[in-house]
């Protein structure tokens, strides 16, 4: 039964339908339909992809805000310690990654300086070695002096500093984007 219904052997429908190419009116109509079809597909594609790509490319603007690091008295003059605070724009699901860190040094009674933990070479976290008075990076061996300037190794730029202020007896640090060392 099946065989009588099918054109077994040559049941391909992939051969073009016969068209009356000779008729100029027909040809014009088909050109028009082609244009309409392609235009419709293009419009549909744009409606879908433009918002999707714009959403993907759009970066959330990160607000700069001051975060408290505790009381001034909690820090000893001359000491450099790691401080952690919430990053510029934490999301509810960020978990531990909402935190960010910096190296904070109390220079004197009122003045503080904060260094980014991101090595200016490729972003690995630098460690403050108090006894050596140096910042050292474990990845490629970049070393920075106590003032953040490059001491040796691959980094070409000094450690980035964050603005710090003392406000009503509290040390406050200004959140900043991750410093990206550009070429």
């Amino acid at each position, binding site marked *: 039964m099946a*065989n009588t219904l099918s054109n077994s052997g040559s049941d391909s429908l992939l051969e073009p339908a016969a068209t009356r190419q000779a008729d100029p009116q027909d040809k014009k109509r088909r050109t028009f339909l082609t244009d309409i079809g392609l235009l419709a597909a293009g419009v549909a594609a744009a409606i879908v992809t433009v918002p999707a790509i714009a959403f993907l490319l759009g970066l959330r603007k990160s607000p700069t805000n001051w975060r408290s690091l505790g009381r001034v008295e909690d820090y000893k003059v001359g000491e450099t310690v790691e401080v952690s605070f919430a990053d510029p724009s934490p999301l509810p699901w960020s978990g531990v990654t909402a935190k960010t860190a910096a190296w904070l040094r109390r220079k004197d009674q009122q003045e503080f300086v904060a260094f980014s933990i991101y090595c200016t070479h490729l972003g690995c976290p630098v*460690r403050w070695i108090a006894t050596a008075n140096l910042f050292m990076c474990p990845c490629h061996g970049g070393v920075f002096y106590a003032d953040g300037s490059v001491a040796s190794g691959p980094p070409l730029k000094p450690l980035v500093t964050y603005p710090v202020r003392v406000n009503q007896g509290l040390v406050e640090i200004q959140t900043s984007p991750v410093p990206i060392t550009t070429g």
Partner: protein
Amino acid sequence: MRFLKRLWAWFDDITGTSSALGPPLMHPVPKARKSRWFYVLGSATLAAFLVQVVTGIALSSSYVTGSGQAYDSLRFISSVPLGRILRGMHYYGSTAMIILIGLHAIRVYLMAAYKYPRQVNWLSGVVLLLGTLLMAFTGQILRWDQGGFWTAVVAAEQAGRTPFIGNWLGHFILAGASPGGATLSRFFAAHVFFIPAVLFTFIAVHLYLVVHNGISEPPKAGQPVDPRTYKRWYHALMKREGVPFWPDAAWRDLFFGCLVVLAIFLLAVIVGPPEIGKPPDPTIIQASPRPDWYFLWYFALLALIPNWSETIVIVAVPLIFIIFLISLPLVAGKGERSPIRRPWSIVLVIFLVATIGYYWHQGMTAPWSPHMDAPPLPESVVGVSSGPIADGAKIFYDKGCEFCHLVSGYGGIRGPDLSDAGDRMTRAEMVTRIYSGAANMPSYSNNLKPDELNALLAFLQSRHRAYKYKISPPPIAQR
């Protein structure tokens, strides 16, 4: 039985299955006598890819794509026996895919199978190769432990070296100002949807073209490809001595693919998946990010090239690699295929494999990384327990000298071994070096009090060759 046969006839009639699948399966392929086993590398890559698809889907059913929870969800997956095996299979599957796609590309390059009419076969393969590398890279980040977290940061920093758009690109990769809530979702979307969609598409293109152009015959020296005659010649060859792909060649693909899958499974069961490191907490400074093995050589390359060339290398090396891959079939689309007549292709492959192998080996020992967890020198090495030499040994440790300099097996290997410094350098030379530093050594001129310097010098001058071999190696394993 008869019923099944009739059912199949009915199904085949209304779906055209055998007429659609029959010709591609039975298409003639070259006999490829001696080199026939070289032809299984592509299908083996596909087998590894299918392992990735299946294990990846299974893993994603328990993985939580949240920066705060991904780590814990992976720990959960690893704590379940089957979850551990699946993670292992996904890891060794990616390892297999990288190795096999690399070997497949080398095979096709050496046999010049990218020449007419198979240029687009090669180009679609280039997309698959780059996509596979991207999958390996993004996959490591999805582990979202400390290593994964810092890999994302390092990726953003590397992208930052791109001229003009570097800063934007770096923050685009992080999906914001800093790595956090949005970063992981971005890499997840790339790893699970975007790149796989590209891979599926181009695998289809690649396979279609393999059937459309036929599998390349093993090259013969003195038999160059001439676009005017090649197709006719190839068709005649296939008519004369071609064998049906199924089962004459396909059994080899399936057999080797099965071995690959078996190896992936056994490695997953016996060796297990890579350990999950510390949590992705940016405030844990005690981190030494290392890429997984596939990019370890690149990590080493960046550490060992001169500092000034770094930005050029970060941007130019991937670019030159991609331009080479794309232009190859377009520039050299005809002529000799045999590697014997293309000696430069052999030189290039040996050079590439040797370079990657060398840097890979360097990456495993990472001689440029300071050993920041090296223990202080024990008394057995120092030789005395008090006095200037002992004080100097303490300063040698406190000031970070030991992180980079080896003394009797203790310390780092970034700087010269100082086990016999007393034999090699005068006191004056030591002072000069300590004060002025070097390209990879900080200057200690403002960092040492006179008595500290004297103690340090006393210690260094007491280092003699005799010590170097007398003392047993340190108890801790060197990284």
